[in-house]
């Protein structure tokens, strides 16, 4: 089979699986689980084969024109290069792991068929985005992902939290998608084609007329999809969805789509220094803000969500300094360890019966109950904090290195101020990342207090997946950093490996963060012992893990007074952040700001429109209706129903006519 056909099969298989699963879900429940797992797994294998066959060779392009679409053609185009094949492997891996994990996690869920179908559909859309060589086709996958995300975040639609979160996720990403669509059209109009190769060629020739405008429009979509400031607010709320969905969509793949798109279209962005500066500022604010916010969250999944935002900020920063290889490198390693973190968090929530770190810190022996989660999450948190020699260290190192390179003014097209911005923000974030990763680990696994109730042994499907994902978390970076530059093409002179300055700086700062958080944890131990707080979901031992999670999320606000935070004086994050803690816990009140800036004006405008409609327009309508009504009332008075009156009038009329005729004659 040709490489092209294999690559076409990769997105097609999960799509067919999704279609079959959604159609057969009700009538043949026995087929749902194979239909969910097997196509995704097959597509993972095929993606690996494609990656192996594509290798470090020249990019493969294939296109099929389905129909003529006027002046700007749209092709079903395939573009395989190092970036796309590797990301496809990552997507396949994470999707397969998530499907296997969901078998156990959602084993009793009545909506499992639609859930699995949507996950498969989502996987297909993401693979389409990755493989396609045409912006229009990419847009199709992009939007399908958006709608799948909406449905999956709202999986527990019985709960208010999930409904609100799904609508918010949809609206906020759509807010970015509208400028993105306009940007795509502008790009296509300028370049005369939607093929990415053609657009890149046009960018290289300087044929793009408004590179800054186009780049900024595209950035809006990227900020929405990849949860960058100021459109990141949907991602923490999206944690109301089931954990596997968070792992797949909101950590490893969909949020990476924006980064991937910028990486593919990087020449368009480097054509405009302003766009790069905006991207860098966006990345810097996102990184530092999300680091602070992550330190204050109480919900374990929200910590991870903010860390995702921060890591995506790293990638955006790498793109801002013009190094897409570093960005994609970090995307790959981050995808692996963040998926692991989320899936591990699912196990933790199931075992602890709560999603609150406060509650977990008051219970002992959680680590002993779930040793698999303890070890794998420990590894991946270390990877997140970029401790050597884990994958996160190498990929983050490549980002730091690229930023440092740019700050020295050595990168073409990139102002050194951009480099400095990214570098400083990345280093500050390294401290924060170290701190919140440590806080998460210590609070979750090193709590002291009454023994955790036994929820039974964790299902094999879940723990196996954790160890499978632990492999790339540990080894991917170290094994591949020498090879990847060949895959990614471009000037091979620059490696992706660590250099001394940034390694020492980055690792040192991360270690500082870890130590500070540990010290704070030790310092607040007495307070934690003195203030027992927390509540767990009481479910039978064999309850479905997803049910525990859904109830935990739903009751969090009820128990602790807020979805995001808890009034825990023994939280090391509270000690570290000091007065910032409160606002950090609420994402720096960005939602409230949006409420004031957008929601309330819109509501006010809506009530104005309602007033205009009800009281102004309606008045005219009533006035217009009043006159005929009066006339009608007058006519109605004549309709007495008395036949003699009618007949009298009739005959009187006849007499009058007769007189007229007689006189006239």
């Amino acid at each position, binding site marked *: 089979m040709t490489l092209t056909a294999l690559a076409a099969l990769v997105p097609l298989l999960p799509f067919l699986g999704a279609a079959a699963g959604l159609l057969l879900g009700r009538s043949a429940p026995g087929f749902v689980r194979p239909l969910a797992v097997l196509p995704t797994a097959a597509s993972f294998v095929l993606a690996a084969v494609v990656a192996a066959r594509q290798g470090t060779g020249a990019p493969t392009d294939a296109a099929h024109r389905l129909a003529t679409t006027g002046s700007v053609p749209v092709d079903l185009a395939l573009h395989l290069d190092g970036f796309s094949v590797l990301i496809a492997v990552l997507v396949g891996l994470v999707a397969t792991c998530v499907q296997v994990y969901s078998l156990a996690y959602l084993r009793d869920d009545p909506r499992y068929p639609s859930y699995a179908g949507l996950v498969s559909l989502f996987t297909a859309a993401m693979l389409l985005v990755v493989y396609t060589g045409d912006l229009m086709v990419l847009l199709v996958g992009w939007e399908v992902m958006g709608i799948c995300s909406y449905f999956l975040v709202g999986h527990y639609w019985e709960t208010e939290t999930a409904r609100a979160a799904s609508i918010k996720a949809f609206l906020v990403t759509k807010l970015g998608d509208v400028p993105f669509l306009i940007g795509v059209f502008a790009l296509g109009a300028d370049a005369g084609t939607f093929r990415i190769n053609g657009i890149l060629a046009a960018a290289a020739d300087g044929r793009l007329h408004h590179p800054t405008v186009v780049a900024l429009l595209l950035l809006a979509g990227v900020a929405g999809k990849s949860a960058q400031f100021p459109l990141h607010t949907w991602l923490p709320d999206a944690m109301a969805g089931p954990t596997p969905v968070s792992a797949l969509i909101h950590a490893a793949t969909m949020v990476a789509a924006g980064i991937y798109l910028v990486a593919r279209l990087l020449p368009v962005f480097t054509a405009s220094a302003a766009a790069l500066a905006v991207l860098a500022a966006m990345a810097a604010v996102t990184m530092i803000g999300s680091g602070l916010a992550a330190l204050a969250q109480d919900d374990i999944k929200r910590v991870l969500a903010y860390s995702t935002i921060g890591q995506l900020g790293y990638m955006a920063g790498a793109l801002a300094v013009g190094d897409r290889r570093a960005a994609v490198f970090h995307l790959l390693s981050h995808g692996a360890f963040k998926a692991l973190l989320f899936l591990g968090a699912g196990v933790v929530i199931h075992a602890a019966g709560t999603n609150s770190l406060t509650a977990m810190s008051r219970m002992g022996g959680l680590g002993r109950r779930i040793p698999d989660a303890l070890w794998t999450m420990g590894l991946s948190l270390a990877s997140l904090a970029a401790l050597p020699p884990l994958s996160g260290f190498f990929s983050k190192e490549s980002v730091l290195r690229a930023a440092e390179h740019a700050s020295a003014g050595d990168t073409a097209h990139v102002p050194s101020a951009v480099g400095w911005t990214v570098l400083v923000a990345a280093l500050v974030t390294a401290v924060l990342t170290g701190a919140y990763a440590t806080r998460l680990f210590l609070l979750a696994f090193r709590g002291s207090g009454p023994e955790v109730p036994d929820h039974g042994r964790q299902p094999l499907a879940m723990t196996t997946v954790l160890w499978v994902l632990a492999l790339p978390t540990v080894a991917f970076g170290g094994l591949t950093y020498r090879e990847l530059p060949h895959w990614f093409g471009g000037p091979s002179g620059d490696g992706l490996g660590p250099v001394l300055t940034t390694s020492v700086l980055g690792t040192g700062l991360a270690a500082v963060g870890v130590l500070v958080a540990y010290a704070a944890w030790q310092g607040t131990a007495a307070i934690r012992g003195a203030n027992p707080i927390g509540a767990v979901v009481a479910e039978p031992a064999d309850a479905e893990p997803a049910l525990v999670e859904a109830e935990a999320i739903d009751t969090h606000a009820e128990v602790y007074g807020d979805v995001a935070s808890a009034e825990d004086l023994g939280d090391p994050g509270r000690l570290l952040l000091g007065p910032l803690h409160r606002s950090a816990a609420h994402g720096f009140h960005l939602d409230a700001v949006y409420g004031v800036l957008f929601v309330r004006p819109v509501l006010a405008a809506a009530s104005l429109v309602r007033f205009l409609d009800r009281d102004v327009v309606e008045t005219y309508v009533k006035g217009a209706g009043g006159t005929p009504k009066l006339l009608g*009332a007058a006519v*109605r008075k004549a309709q007495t*129903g*008395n*036949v*003699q009156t009618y*007949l009298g009038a009739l005959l009187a009329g006849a007499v009058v006519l007769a007189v007229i005729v007689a006189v006239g004659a």
Partner: protein
Amino acid sequence: MHLAYPAVLAALLFCVGVYGVLARRNAILVLMSVELMLNAVNLNLVAFDVWLRDTLHAGQALTLFTITIAAAEIGLGLAIVLLVYRNRGSSDIDRLTALADPAGPRGDGTGRPGAGEDPDGPGTTAGDEKAEATA
């Protein structure tokens, strides 16, 4: 004989019938007035037939037909009046106002046993207000 005599008599009889139809309250009296009008026409027909000396005797034949039709009409009319009287308890024409356009929408105009009730009763104004509210 002058044709004017029967013609004027017919005209006056007809107008007396008209008055009766318009002024009488009892339906049977109205029917009597209708008979007067028909007879006025019959008188005209006979008079003009005699004046014209019609070889077909059209006037007299039509008079016979009119008498026949009048008999049929009076039978049917009385049956209707009886039916109305049986249903409404009254044969007064000016109280049979079910055809009136009521001031407000009522459930249904048909089959209302007290159709002759006061058309401006309190129920109508309430219905009027309801119509305002829904409009």
